[in-house]
């Protein structure tokens, strides 16, 4: 539709563009409207244009926070569920094991009762047979008695009819009666023992007497015959150490006894040939650490002094450190300044700090007896033990003082390491307690006394070097 009245539009537009106040108040909003608009502008106008943004950011922030919180909560839930599942699996596994164990016990018990029932049945049959035998025996004895009475009566009559005196007659009668009675008794004594066995007395020989049917064999015992375990032992012994200087004269005591306490770890295996008796062997390993300080007094010997022009006087000291098992030779040099020479016999105070490390392996072979019933039983043990010692490490530092001066020490060195008892046997005996934690698992503690069979040819070391103790704790599994 074509608009042919454009001039009208122009007319209106022109009139409106030429703004005039001809309308007066009619051309303006009422005061009330004006105030309302101004108030709304203040309240919801542009003065807070970013308010919505803040709300939006806050909402997004809250949403993210809630999301992260929920994710964290879900992660916790997952962890809890995993833990619960694991516990459930473990419980299920333990239940299965318990059920299997119970089933095994049930079968064993059932077989045992079946065997016992068979044994009782056999006993009953035998009792019936014996009762019949006894009845027969009684009847035969009664017949014999009657026959004897008859014989006696006849004999009495014959005697009465004879010409013997009354006294002789009585004697003969008594002898005859005794002979008959003895004969009867002998007959009974010979027959009764086989019949008078108590059928309710069960012992290991009884099944043979019952002559069980061949298809019923005695149930094989479910006694656990093998054992493996881990053992922690706290070994205690005296380690005597003797220190001497080969080229110097000692002026003080050189021996020192040290109380050693060292832990050892080991595994072992045991076999039970008979109920309550076990033969045990294994392997134990430990490391002995000896770290000691000592002071030795020497009477100075100038024999080994070496001198070079313009240099201090030097003297080599040869130290021998020996234990009941090892012998270590070491050496160090001391320097003496010119003009401060030491005289023969001057006192040298030698301070030494050394560290000796030994590896100690033990292979016990012994027998054990368990006494008692229930979960807690006594334990007696004894046997032999193979011991082998090897060197770990040896280090030492030393200071030497003479005439109030510290002498310089250098060239510390180890010359040789040797064994006097590299391997040796020892015996042991002990007493302890065994506790069955649950089926097959045992915890055990025992106290042992050891005696080492070692050479001590020069009696250099005290007798206590041969003795030792051990506190053993072990966890064992029997199968």
């Amino acid at each position, binding site marked *: 539709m074509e608009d042919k009245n454009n001039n*009208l*539009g122009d007319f*209106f537009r022109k009139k*409106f563009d030429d*703004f005039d106040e001809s309308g007066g108040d009619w051309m303006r909003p009422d005061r009330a*409207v004006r105030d*309302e608009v101004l108030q709304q502008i203040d309240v919801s106008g*542009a003065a807070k244009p970013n308010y919505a943004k803040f709300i939006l950011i806050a909402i997004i922030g809250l949403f993210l926070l809630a999301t992260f919180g929920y994710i964290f909560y879900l992660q916790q839930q997952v962890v809890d569920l995993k833990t619960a599942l694991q516990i459930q699996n473990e419980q299920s596994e333990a239940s299965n094991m318990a059920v299997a164990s119970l089933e095994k016990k049930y079968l064993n018990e059932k077989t045992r009762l079946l065997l016992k029932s068979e044994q009782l049945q056999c006993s009953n049959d035998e009792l019936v047979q014996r009762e019949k035998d006894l009845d027969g025996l009684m009847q035969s004895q009664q017949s014999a008695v009657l026959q004897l009475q008859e014989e006696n009566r006849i004999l009495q009559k014959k005697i009465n009819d004879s010409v013997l005196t009354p006294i002789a007659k009585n004697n003969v009668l008594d002898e005859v009666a005794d002979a008959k009675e003895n004969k009867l008794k002998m007959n009974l004594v010979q027959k009764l023992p086989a019949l008078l066995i108590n059928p309710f007395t069960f012992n290991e020989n009884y099944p043979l007497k019952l002559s069980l049917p061949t298809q019923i064999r005695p149930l094989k015992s479910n006694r656990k015959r093998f054992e493996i375990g881990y053992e922690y032992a706290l070994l205690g012994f005296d380690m005597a150490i003797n220190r001497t200087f080969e080229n110097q004269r000692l002026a003080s005591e050189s021996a020192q006894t040290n109380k050693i306490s060292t832990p050892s770890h080991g595994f072992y295996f045991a076999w039970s040939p008979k109920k309550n008796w076990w033969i045990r062997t294994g392997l134990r390993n430990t490391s002995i650490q000896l770290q000691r300080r000592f002071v030795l007094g020497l009477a100075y010997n100038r024999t080994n002094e070496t001198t070079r022009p313009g240099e201090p006087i030097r003297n080599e000291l040869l130290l021998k450190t020996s234990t009941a098992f090892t012998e270590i030779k070491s050496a160090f040099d001391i320097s003496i300044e010119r003009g401060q020479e030491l005289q023969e016999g001057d006192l040298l105070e030698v301070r030494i700090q050394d560290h000796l490390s030994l590896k100690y392996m033990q292979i016990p072979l012994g027998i054990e007896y368990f006494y008692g019933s229930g979960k807690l039983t006594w334990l007696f043990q004894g046997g032999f033990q193979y011991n082998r010692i090897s060197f770990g490490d040896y280090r030492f530092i030393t200071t030497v003082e003479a005439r109030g001066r510290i002498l310089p020490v250098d060239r510390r060195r180890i010359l040789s390491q040797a064994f006097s008892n590299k391997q040796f046997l020892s015996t042991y005996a002990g007493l302890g307690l065994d506790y069955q934690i649950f089926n097959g698992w045992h915890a055990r503690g025992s106290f042992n006394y050891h005696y080492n069979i070692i050479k001590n040819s020069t009696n250099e070391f005290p007798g206590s070097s041969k003795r030792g103790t051990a506190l053993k704790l072990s966890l064992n599994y029997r199968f």
Partner: protein
Amino acid sequence: MNQDDHLLIKKILAGDKSASKILYEQNEPYWFRLCLRYGRNRSEAQDIFQEGVVKVFQVLDKFDIKRGTFGGWSNRVIVNEALKYLKRHQWQESFEDLSLTAATMPWPESIIEKITARELIELVQKLPLGYRVVFNMYEIEGYSHREIAETLGISVGTSKSQLYKAKRTLQAQLKLLL
């Protein structure tokens, strides 16, 4: 838009309430006159005015100086609010074809001097809604028929028809007035 308006808008966005009042007072006559043209009467115009002006201040942060003047932008906002208002209140009688038979006539300059803006507005107010809206949007605000059609949800042909009939009606009314 002059530099003062731009400065005022910045102050308003910074939270200066006095600037809001100044901007309002500067534009109040124009905005209200616009509303008078869209309303059926002054009372409706005041309702439209109230909603439109509040809307202008609510969306003031969206005004982009590079895309036009503040006057043109604020007029469009108020027109949109006017259309919303009219849809809520009198849309049912909207764009029916009314058989008006006013004759076409030229408009001499002498007539323009004799008639006032108020009288013209009152003539426009008396137009049926469809005529009034299309006439205002096309002739006064400068919308194209396509824009009017999209805004009002009518066809371009209807927009043109409504405009034609609005003008014929106004011509007839002016004749009577003069």
